[in-house]
């Protein structure tokens, strides 16, 4: 599923980042732990239920300004969709915000 760019992703119940003091940084979830590299950590940290997918893409395009913007967008959409399939993310619809 490709996420709606206007929805607001947030970590699903029981999914959380480990303490920033701990290394490596991982996304903890039921029976799984995903190690997060630079960009994946920056994406997951922004899945706060307040930012839209579009905002996350824009922010990451600014951080990775040397990368092809379209490539950044495709990568983020792919990664969000993967996290959603693993039930690590919920997408909160735009309305009611």
């Amino acid at each position: 599923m490709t996420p709606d760019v206007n929805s607001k992703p947030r970590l699903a119940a029981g999914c959380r980042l480990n303490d920033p003091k701990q290394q490596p940084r991982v996304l903890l979830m039921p029976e799984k732990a995903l190690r997060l590299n630079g960009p994946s950590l920056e994406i997951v940290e922004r899945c706060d239920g307040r930012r839209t997918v579009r905002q996350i893409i824009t922010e990451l395009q600014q951080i990775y300004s040397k990368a092809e913007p379209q490539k950044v967008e495709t990568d983020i959409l792919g990664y969000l969709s993967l996290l959603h399939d693993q039930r690590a993310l919920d997408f909160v619809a735009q309305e009611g915000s």
Partner: protein
Amino acid sequence: MNPTTSTTLTTPTPLALIAELTHRCPLHCVYCSNPLELNSRTKELSTEDWKKAFGEAAQLGMLQADFTGGEPLARPDILELVEAARAAGLYVNLITSGLPLDESRLERLVAAGLDHFQLSFQGARPEIASEISGTTTHAQKLRVLGWLARHRIAVTLNFVIHRRNIHQIEEMLAIAEASCATRVEFANVQYYGWAFANRDNLLPTRRQIDSSLETLKRAQQRLRGKMRIEYVVPDYYARFPKACMGGWGRKLMLIVPSGDVLPCHAARIIRGLTFDNVKDRGLREIWENSAAFQKFRGEDWMQEPCRSCDRREVDFGGCRCQAMLLVNDAAATDPVCSLSPNRNKVDAILGELALKPAETIYEESRPAWIYRINPA
């Protein structure tokens, strides 16, 4: 940038601590994975012992703690233990029958920092649940599901599958779909402990396994993005063994109620192994140096065909306890492996079962179960 390169951790530091908080349990399940010789209440670790162990586990780099038993909720200090494990930096899983629980205790568990609630089911209907657990459980589990929906917590339903309930998978899925669970596990019984004693009445037929695989494949497609569905097939039917515990002494440590630290649930059945206790040695020292953890680490212990096998880093020779149980040699290739010289022993067990027509199996009269007892 490529965020999709993040992977499931494969570092040699242990990932999770399995904390068997007690062997006491209100259920008497015929497939219980606990050993036949249970630890008594008087031998159980104290609250402080456990707290110290959680701190050491986190120091060692472990990420998760699995609270199990017995029934972990039988510990009166369970709230304090959840709080302590969480404070140490661990992700806290509770694997429970949901029996010694009411709404306010659940609320306090969530407030204490519980991350993930795994509710075990003995079947989709009250009759089979009572038959398997030797007590009345089903209605309480459905009540617990209702309470869980009011909290923001990860919920997994664990259905333990065997010959007597494998035909109920559609109904089990319906229970899961009507609940707040985001993950459901259909775990075929693994044959250790009490399950080994009851194996002949639990083992499903090949036909049952094939049909359950189809049902679950369809469900996985239909529920993609809604629910994670995981299926553990019984390894007697597999071509290759499971990578038991992710490899001996590679990922997991288990502390039994008395504080002995084991590489796996059943390790006590292996002759000649000695176990250190968390009251005497630190977890790091045990992980790195304990004779029990060293015994089957790496490849030096392997015999042929494992020793020269391409899969030796995939399944690590399979399960040591299964080799012990089935061929009386803990260092043998797991006999479920199609390459094992002992595979014929497993085939003989399955062969007897295949003579029974699958359709009549559900109508079999209630077997003479050996029920799990409670420790003194």
